[in-house]
Structure formats: C-alpha cells, structure tokens
C-alpha cells in the first residue's frame, strides 16, 4: 500500500486496449539500425502521444501570443489556455486552490525555488535539514548550497539492503533544530515507493515542512496533496508524456505567501518604481518573465491524456511488466537486481557480473534497446550498494511483454560478447 492509500496491484487493466494505446506514440515506430526501438528509459523521460503533439501544433498555429498582457484575441486565448492548464494540474494533485500551483521549468527549478524562496528566508545557522539516501542530486545539491551559505546541517536517512528507507532512523533524526525535510516520493534509481504520508505526519509533529520530489511518482501514482498534507510537491511534465522545459510546484498558499520571490522580473510585480517594488500575489509572484506557455498547455494536455486512461490502470499494467521482467531477469545467472523494495514502481536497476554498465548500454543499443546506464544522478544510492553504476530499465504503459523478451535476449547477447 502506498502513501495515498491506493494499491496499484488492485486495479484492473482488462478494459484497456494497450496495443491501441501504443499506436498513439509515433516515436515507437522508429527503427534503430534496422531494429525496432525498445524504449525502456521512461524514468529519464517518457515519450509523447500524437494527441499532445497535436495540441502543441494547435497552440502554435492558432493560439499563440504572450499572456497576462494585451487585450487582443490571441493574448486572451493564450492566457485562458495557460490558466486552464494550471487548473488541470490543480485537479490532478487535488490542490485546494489553483493559485497553489506554480509553473516552473521543471522539478529541479521547483526545488531551487523552494530553497531560495523558503530556505533562504527561514533556515538559519545551526538548523538541520533532513534528506534521504534515495534523493536525486536535484534534491541534495540545492540544500547543500543553502547549508553552506547559512551554516546549516544536512542529516541523511539511511536505506536498508532492499533500498527501503529506515523509518526508525528517520524519526530519530528529529530534534528542535530540524527545520526542513526533503523527501523523494519514488526513487528514480531503484523504484522504491517511500511511505511519505507517515513521514510527513511525523515531521508535522515537530512543525517541520516537507517537500516531496514527485518526479518519478506523478506518472505512476495518484497524488492527493491535501490527503498527504505535504507542504510542497514538485514534478516535471516530460516524465508524464508532456514536453520538456516545464514542471510544477505545489505549495500551501500560506507558505507560498510567506516566501520571498525566487526570480525578479516582469509579471511577478504589482507595481515598480525605483524606490520600491510591490510583488504580485501568488502564483504570479513566482512566475517572473514569459513562462513556457506552449509547454504548460502541453502539460495540461498530458494530464488529460493520462487521466483519460487512468493513473491507477496505468500503474496496474506497468506492474504486470515489472513482475514479468523481474522474474525473467532473476533467472539469468550473473544478473543482479539492485533495489528490491516491497513497494516499487516499474523500474529495474541491475548489474551483470564482470560487465560495466556502459558496455551493457552500448551493446543493448545495437539491438535497439534504450536503457539508462550510469549513476542516475543518485550517487549516494550507488555508494550505499558499493557499485559505480547500474543499468536501468524503466517501463511505461506503452511498453509490452515482448519488449521485455527482447531485453532478456539482449542481456544474454551482452554476456556472450564478454564470455
């Protein structure tokens, strides 16, 4: 059971024609060196269906102008569509108000916004920030920068051998100096789903705000920020079949209002003189300059596309791929799966005895298979397992079992090359 109280394994996928959904994605027809593309790098970035591509084309051909400014037709329609995208995100995460949704350039940008807007204002020398071993570098480095600027301290929650957070250790880290928690919802390197509801509740006993990095969770789990009672929740569009260059920050209105702006410029002001500038209200206070209008509208279209299928059905289908692939890889001698948490999304990180992940990635690529190889921007996870890198296959709802068979054959080819 994950934090939202929904178990993906309980949903049914029988009423969906997954083969037909696959045809929505033109890129999946590509051949790589004559081999059909097998795209298993979805945790890095997912592919875009024709419906969203069409939405972007429609915007650029019939709706584009700058927003929040002019009174002409195109500006009105662009402003309205941009606002509609914000409302779609509000519904998607079940935020109480649309002004609690801030458009950012992505997850990293959203975390940096919170670090500058909240952290630089409220974190002081001697304060402690709790992070976990599972964090992506984007939820480590901004807080290290803040800690070094302020003289604050980073405390780290360890993980066990399965790649699960040690919750007892997390709870022991709290004291009167604890002022912030940064927590990844789903590990990008291992797929572990963290018990964030319990962890948020615990932090709130100490009145400590919690930021959830949902970059890997949003494509697979139902998110309800009110039920979670998280203070901040962030993710990117491009892992949800949307465009790159846009992401979102959910923040509780009271917190967003108390925070200082991140970037200064147009749109984030109420009035400017050289003596004094009065900042605009939220969300505009945090959206300086012309935002990625087209990408934000594409983000909204992506939310429509995914919710039409249903995130729960998507997760349930992906879990059938995960279970199948896990069973297949466990049968190959020399292959070791890193990250065996009881609650996982459809991500398999693995090593092959005696073969470097970069060699694995290059040889799999010759069979048209796209996996990620490296440290996955999560070097503390690699250090915990005492490995420099892994290969990672991450599945989406447009993947199929026969592609898992191609991966299994590809891994056997890799082993033959290095025999």
């Amino acid at each position, binding site marked *: 059971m994950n934090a939202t109280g929904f178990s993906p394994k309980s949903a049914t996928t029988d009423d969906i024609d997954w083969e037909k959904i696959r045809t929505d994605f033109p890129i999946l027809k590509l051949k790589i060196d004559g081999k059909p593309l097998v795209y298993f790098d979805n945790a890095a970035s997912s592919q875009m269906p024709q419906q969203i591509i069409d939405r972007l084309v429609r915007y650029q051909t019939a709706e584009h102008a700058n927003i929040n400014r002019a009174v002409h037709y195109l500006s009105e329609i662009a402003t309205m569509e941009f606002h509609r995208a914000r409302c779609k995100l509000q519904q998607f995460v079940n935020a109480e108000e649309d002004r609690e949704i801030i458009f950012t350039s992505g997850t990293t940008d959203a975390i940096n916004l919170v670090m500058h807007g909240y952290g630089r204002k409220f974190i002081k020398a001697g304060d402690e920030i709790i992070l976990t071993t599972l964090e992506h570098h984007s939820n480590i480095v901004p807080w290290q920068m803040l800690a070094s600027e302020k003289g604050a301290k980073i405390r780290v929650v360890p993980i066990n051998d399965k790649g699960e957070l040690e919750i007892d250790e997390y709870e022991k880290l709290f004291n009167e100096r604890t002022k912030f928690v940064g927590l990844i919802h789903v590990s990008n390197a291992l797929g572990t789903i963290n018990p964030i509801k319990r962890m948020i509740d615990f932090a709130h006993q100490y009145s400590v705000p919690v930021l959830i990095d949902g970059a890997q969770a949003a494509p697979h789990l139902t998110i309800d920020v009110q039920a979670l009672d998280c203070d901040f929740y962030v993710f990117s569009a491009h892992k949800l079949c949307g465009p790159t260059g846009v992401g979102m920050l959910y923040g509780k209105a009271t917190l967003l209002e108390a925070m200082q702006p991140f970037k200064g410029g147009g749109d984030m002001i109420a009035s400017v003189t050289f003596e004094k500038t009065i900042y605009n209200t939220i969300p505009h206070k945090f959206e300086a300059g012309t935002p990625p209008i087209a990408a934000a509208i594409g983000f909204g279209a992506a939310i429509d596309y995914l919710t039409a299928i249903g995130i729960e059905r998507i997760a349930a289908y992906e879990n059938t791929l995960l279970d199948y692939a896990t069973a297949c890889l466990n049968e190959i001698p020399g292959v070791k799966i890193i990250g065996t948490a009881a609650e996982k999304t459809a991500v398999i990180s693995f090593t092959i005895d005696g073969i470097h992940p970069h060699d694995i990635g290059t040889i799999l690529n010759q069979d048209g298979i796209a996996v990620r190889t490296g*440290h996955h921007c999560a070097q503390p996870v690699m250090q915990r397992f005492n490995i420099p890198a892994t290969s990672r296959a991450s599945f989406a709802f447009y993947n199929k079992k026969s592609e898992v068979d191609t991966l299994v054959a590809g891994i056997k080819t890799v082993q033959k090359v*290095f025999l």
Partner: protein
Amino acid sequence: MHTNSLYQEVILDHNRKPRNYGKLEHASHRATGHNPLCGDRLNISLQLNERDQIDAIAFEGESCAICKASASMMTAAVKGKSRLDAETLIHEFRELVTGKLDADNPHHLGRLTVFSGIRDLPTRVKCAILPWHTLHAALNSLENASTEADHDPASTVSSNT
C-alpha cells in the same frame, strides 16, 4: 550473435587480459584520470629514463571494457617510446576517436585504429580517451586528469590542475 563493430576481438581480449596492469613501485611520473560521466577512475604510473624514454608503464582502475582495452593497448604502444613520440600518439589517437584523423596522412596508430568505430558513439569517446588524457597528465607532471575540457590535451596545457 550479430557483427559488432566496436567490441572487436582485439578489444575484448585486452579487456579480459589487460597488459601492464598494476602499479609501478618506483615511478618518475604518476597521474589519476577521472570520467565524471560514469565515475570511472584510472591510475597511470610510468618511469622515464635519462633519455626521456618510457622504460616502464602500468595502469590500474575500475572501468568499462572500452576504457580498459584502450589503456592496455596504449601502455603496450608507448612502452619504449620517447616522451615526444608518446605525445604524438596521444594527439593521433584523439584525432582518430573524434573522427578528425586525416586518412591520407601517415600516422603511427597501427592496431589502435580498432577504436575508430567509437567516433559514431559520442558518449563513449570519453571512455576511450581517458587513459590518453591521463598519460598526457602524467608526462606533464599533472597529478589529475579528466575527460572534461580543462584537462583536454587539445586545449592549452596548463600546469595548475
């Protein structure tokens, strides 16, 4: 198994049985190379004699097959060569893997041309070139090398790392 343009037998052989693997007890020059893309590290130690020739050379470290084979073949190629000839090979190997080698002009790479296929895989060029950057650093008494621009022997050689 299909034809494999990059992982040719000579490369696989040097990966399986790397030549000059280890560390020299007495070395006149040492350097550590680092590829931040994958975290791979490589140590090179070598002994230059009074005539500026490489009497002995060894390498060690955890790395991918391309990097290890490149290091193994490099050490075999430069052993007994003068510092100047080694620098020429470093330059020519760099030109080879970045697709800039002029095939009409004579070069000294010999069997090292098995790495030519890597020019089509830009993300792997750094794997092949790391040992050569590290050798260049060692010959120039720099302690550290990297695959990144500051340590690129094609850019100006700098004495501060």
